[in-house]
């Protein structure tokens, strides 16, 4: 019969202890998420209805729905996506595929990482100065979306570059050895194998900006505007600002309203995140090498 030694038993106890410790930390991390969602659903749930999503706010924003704010946030995110995809992808392609490995490239990479740490209120002021005033877009969807785009560009570039770097180097060298130019190699081998990661990464990053308030407050989001914008040069309501307004600025708001708005906002971000994850799973399912 095998008898565990004292050392075996000791190791076993440590193993169990460590497992419980790590599991505990993980649960601790999940707990706030669960509580937040639970509170939102419990308190905001009653406010939710089809009318809530499709009607204008009424009664000094104490009754009615959130339709213009919901549409506004979708428009802001879409225009931000359209602006950040070409610029971010092009910059990442340059950094990953063309840039020589020298001090300038390293400096640019460092700058990009630091740019990601710039507080959103600073981006807001930049957007106000650059897009609203200097370029003369006024407070508009365009100015607000460009501000959001600038804000997310660093993370978009980093995530795109990671997707590009995930394509093994020998594939590139095999193409170059055949006389393919850098661009031919990128177009025929690198991009087709990186595109799913690039797109899902961008959707993930940009969808996070749906909840940003500061950058759009100065540049394009309106306090109250009960109709839809006609072009990107109009102002718009947005969910994040609307949440701030009904939670702090408007008297006599029923308690369920701000929670309902928050629930819709979080739901939107979650839907975009899961869409991006689903897209990634579908596209990555096929093993290519």
């Amino acid at each position: 019969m095998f008898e565990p030694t004292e050392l075996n038993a000791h190791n076993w106890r440590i193993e169990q202890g460590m497992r419980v410790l790590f599991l505990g930390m993980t649960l601790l991390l999940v707990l706030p998420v669960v509580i937040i969602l639970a509170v939102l659903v419990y308190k905001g749930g009653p406010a939710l209805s089809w009318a809530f999503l499709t009607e204008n706010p009424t009664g000094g924003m104490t009754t009615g729905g959130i339709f213009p704010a919901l549409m506004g946030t979708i428009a802001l995110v879409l225009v931000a996506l359209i602006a950040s995809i070409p610029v971010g992808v092009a910059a990442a392609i340059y950094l990953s595929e063309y840039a020589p490995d020298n001090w300038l490239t390293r400096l640019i990479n460092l700058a990009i990482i630091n740019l990601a740490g710039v507080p959103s209120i600073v981006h807001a002021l930049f957007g106000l100065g650059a897009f609203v005033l200097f370029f003369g877009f006024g407070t508009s969807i365009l100015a607000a979306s460009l501000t959001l785009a600038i804000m997310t560009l660093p993370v978009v570039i980093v995530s795109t570059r990671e997707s590009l770097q995930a394509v093994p180097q020998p594939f590139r060298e095999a193409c170059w050895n055949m006389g393919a130019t850098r661009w031919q190699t990128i177009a025929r081998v690198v991009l087709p194998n990186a595109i799913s990661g690039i797109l899902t990464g961008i959707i993930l990053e940009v969808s996070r900006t749906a909840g940003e308030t500061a950058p759009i407050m100065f540049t394009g989001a309106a306090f109250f505007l009960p109709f839809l914008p006609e072009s990107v040069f109009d102002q718009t309501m947005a969910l994040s600002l609307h949440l701030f307004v009904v939670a702090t600025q408007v008297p006599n708001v029923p308690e369920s309203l701000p929670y309902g708005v928050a629930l819709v906002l979080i739901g939107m971000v979650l839907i975009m995140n899961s869409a991006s994850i689903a897209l990634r799973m579908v596209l990555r399912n096929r093993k290519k090498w």
Partner: protein
Amino acid sequence: MSDSAPAPVKEIEARKLSVHYGRHTALSGANFDVYRNEIFGIIGPANSGKTSFLRVLNRMDTFTPGMRFEGTVMYRGKDLRDWRNLYALRRSVGVVFPLPVGLPLSVYDNVALAPRLRGVRAKAELDVTVERCLRRAALWDEVKDRLGALGSLLSGGQQQRLTIARALSQEPDLLLLDEFSIAVDPVTTMRIEDVLKQLKSEMTIVLVTNLTQQARRLADRTAFFLQGQCVEVGPTNELFNDPQHDKTRAYIEGRFG
């Protein structure tokens, strides 16, 4: 060679060629010629600089960090450094390295890539090229029913032959083979060797091999590399039967390496 035979055309002339990786010297002071339409064998133990020589011919130093070369290499009468259009140079040189790389494209697209890069669009023409190259690389029978399968998921030996087919699809003037049979079974290797003998009427072939007998079977002339030196170059018969250097003799008799 009889007296009346025309002087061979020099396809490659290496003079005082040295190859470095950072501070490490992989090849130093190599001088030899490769003639047009011959099979030029290079034998020698591992790390003697054989692959490094091939890398120079395709100017891989331009994208290999730390790699550089000194001396001159003339290719088709023109200094390699004077080829302004490196893409044109590389299109004229087909390479097969020991670690095969099937691109993550279909088998068909792997072989059709080079023709497409030089502008061939017609499906019929591509079909003909793909089949011819796959046949020459002794891969056609195994993949003809699944040309749409991913080249990067073929077995190692199949990927190696796919790489050969891809190099041939460039219709190169110069074919560089680096231990091409490392993952290929002996029977298939023999089939490819037969093809190489025919191909030399169309192109010049430099064959790096760790199988001395392969050089003996195929090469018109052979060079022996050792520890970054080109020790000896000569017609294959002479090199194998009457080597000028003791180290060459020791190597081909299998006493080291």
